[in-house]
Structures are given as structure tokens and as C-alpha cells.
């Protein structure tokens, strides 16, 4: 395995977007750079196997006899073997074809999170003003898993926040005696429809402005899903403290999400020149700046639109 370069300026290849910052040495705790999840299976099975050896000898003779009597019958033996081979075939077929419809391996990257990452990311979503370095770290051309880099997008927080938003909406409607079960489905459908519309609009704008970016669709869904966290905070405060609390917390979360989106998207969309902080003149960069501002401005608007009817 070739070692990761110390500085990205060392690579002679022509790049369209800024040189990716590479980790000079493997950070502590990361055994294999491409491994997303810790592998604890071998340690556990070894421990349990040693335990069960001497202590389990007394058991199998007594407990297994009724099962053994059932399995001793050759027909049922054959039937079990046939059934298990059918199941294995079915599983193989599904595993082979699932990657065609849902990119499972790509999705696994977005769920490789741990508690520390979630805590720090939530803190960043509510208070992004002091964070200095917003660039995602790379390790040999693949982005580092979210658990090792706080700037990497993940899908765990947006998914959990979406579900919590639906539940909190149900709670809010319930306290106002306006609840009925189909309203939950309506809320979920409405929020998903707005999310889909946002993603499509941004993809269309990126295509029309011919922006060369490594922002994937799933990345976009992740970034646009972060606003649900602020929405939950606002509605909960609105439940506890009425309209004043709702407007205060929602205003704070709107400004935070605005700043967060601008700082994150600036590195992805305005990659070439403006990432270093220098404002560049020129029609192309100006249009891209407008796009970033529009995306960031749409977040507070949607946050208000999706929650104001829940707080009375």
C-alpha cells in the first residue's frame, strides 16, 4: 500500500477542485483505512468458545435428546438440508441484485458513526461559529468515514431527526387535540416531498451552472436533512414555553443552519478559488455564490414552513 502523501501539493495530477488534504499518518485507532466498522466478532467468539467448553459438557446430553430424536429421522433431516439450501440460494440472489437498486455499500459509509461524532455534530449544528476547519479529510482518494472526521456528511442524524420530527409533530398535535393517526402520514409525506423537491431543484441548478463538484446526491440529502434537528428543537421549545420560546429557538437554529450550510457548501460548490476565502469576481463564480446563498436561505424558510402550524 503506498503511503498517503504528506501534502497534496506533491501530486502532479491536474485537478479541477482544490487539493484534498491528506492525513500524513494514520490517526490512532484506525487500523485499516477502508474499514468502516470495528470488527469485534473474533474476540467475542473466542471468549465465549473458551467459556462454553468446560461448562457446557453437561448440557448437550440432556437438552438435545428430544431434538436429536426428531432429527434422527432421515426424512426430516433431508427436508431441513433442502430448506437451508433454498434459503442460502435465495439470500445469494438477493445479495447479488440488491446493489443494482440500492447502493448498499455506499450507504454503509454514511452510517459509520459513533456517539462522539453524533454529539460533536449536533453541537456543530447548533453552534457553528467557532469551528475553523470545514474541509473533509481524505485517505487515499476516498473520504474518511464520518466517525473519524466531523466534517463528513452522514445519514444517521438526518434519518433520526426526520423520524423524531414526525413524532414530535404528533405530540404537538396531540396536546392541541388536533391529532388523528393519518395526520402523521401526512406530515411525513409533506416533509419528504419538500426534501425531494429541494434535492431536484439543487441538482437541476448544479447541472445548469455546470458546476464541477464531487457533491453526490446522497451527500445533498444528508446536508438538507440537517435542518430537521433545528425544527425539533423549535417545536419542543414551543411546546414548553409557547410562541415566544418557539420563535427564539427557531430563530437561533435558522441562523445556525444558514451559517453551517454556507460554510459547508462553499467548499463543495465554489471549490476552485473562493475556498481560500478570497472573493473572486467573474460571472461564473458569482452565479455559484448566488446558488449557495439560495440553498442556505431556503433552509430557514422551510424550517419555518414545516413547523409553524404545529405551535399555537
Amino acid at each position, binding site marked *: 500500500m503506498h503511503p498517503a502523501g504528506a501534502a497534496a501539493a506533491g501530486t502532479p495530477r491536474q485537478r479541477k477542485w482544490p487539493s484534498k488534504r491528506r492525513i500524513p499518518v494514520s490517526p490512532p485507532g484506525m487500523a485499516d483505512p477502508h474499514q468502516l466498522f470495528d470488527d469485534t466478532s473474533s474476540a467475542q467468539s473466542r471468549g465465549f468458545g473458551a467459556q462454553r467448553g468446560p461448562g457446557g459438557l453437561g448440557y448437550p446430553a440432556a437438552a438435545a435428546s428430544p431434538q436429536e430424536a426428531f432429527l434422527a429421522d432421515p426424512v426430516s433431516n433431508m427436508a431441513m438440508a433442502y430448506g437451508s439450501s433454498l434459503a442460502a440460494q435465495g439470500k445469494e440472489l438477493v445479495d447479488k441484485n440488491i446493489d443494482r437498486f440500492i447502493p448498499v455499500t455506499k450507504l454503509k459509509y454514511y452510517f459509520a458513526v459513533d456517539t462522539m461524532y453524533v454529539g460533536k455534530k449536533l453541537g456543530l449544528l447548533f453552534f457553528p461559529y467557532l469551528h475553523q476547519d470545514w474541509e473533509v479529510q481524505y485517505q487515499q482518494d476516498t473520504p474518511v468515514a464520518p466517525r473519524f472526521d466531523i466534517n463528513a456528511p452522514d445519514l444517521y442524524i438526518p434519518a433520526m431527526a426526520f423520524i423524531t420530527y414526525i413524532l414530535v409533530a404528533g405530540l404537538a398535535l396531540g396536546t392541541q387535540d388536533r391529532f388523528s393517526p393519518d395526520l402523521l402520514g401526512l406530515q411525513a409525506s409533506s416533509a419528504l*416531498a419538500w426534501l*425531494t423537491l429541494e434535492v431536484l431543484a439543487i441538482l437541476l441548478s448544479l447541472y*445548469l451552472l*455546470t458546476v464541477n463538484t464531487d457533491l453526490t446526491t446522497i451527500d445533498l440529502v444528508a446536508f438538507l436533512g440537517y435542518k430537521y434537528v433545528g425544527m425539533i428543537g423549535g417545536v419542543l421549545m414551543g411546546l414548553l414555553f409557547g410562541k415566544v420560546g418557539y420563535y427564539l429557538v427557531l430563530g437561533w437554529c435558522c441562523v445556525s443552519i444558514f451559517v453551517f450550510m454556507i460554510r459547508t457548501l462553499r467548499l463543495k460548490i465554489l471549490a476552485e478559488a473562493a475556498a481560500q476565502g478570497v472573493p473572486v469576481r467573474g460571472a461564473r463564480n458569482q452565479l455559484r455564490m448566488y446558488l449557495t446563498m439560495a440553498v442556505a436561505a431556503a433552509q430557514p424558510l422551510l424550517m419555518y414552513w414545516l413547523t409553524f402550524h404545529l405551535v399555537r
Partner: protein
Amino acid sequence: MAFTLYSLLQAALLCVNAIAVLHEERFLKNIGWGTDQGIGGFGEEPGIKSQLTNLIRSVRTVMRGKKKNEWNTLKF
């Protein structure tokens, strides 16, 4: 409030249909968005207008499928 996934699907379907039934000679050429007007050279920036014309042309080609050549010939 009644903005559901189904209404989004309906809107998308109607938009795609609208793009597919646009008559090139009557409308697009008058605006200057016809498919044979000014594709442009291999300059650096395609520009928004040429991207839009390409998009409209691609959607129409995909929607029309393979049967465009058979419209004028009757097959029995």
C-alpha cells in the same frame, strides 16, 4: 399543507409531458431555443441557455423513444 409525495409526482409528470409536447417550429425557434440554432463551439463555458436547450432536447428524445422514424410510415 397538503403538499404530499403524490402531488409532487403529479407535478413532475405534468412538467415532463409539457416538455415533450412542445412544438419546436412554432415556439422554440421563435424564442431562439431551437435545437439546431447555435449549439456553440467547444468553448469553455456552455452557458445556461445552451444547457437548457440541451436538457429540453434530451428529455424530448428520451420521451420519444425509438418510434420517431415510424410516425410517417404506416405499418400494417
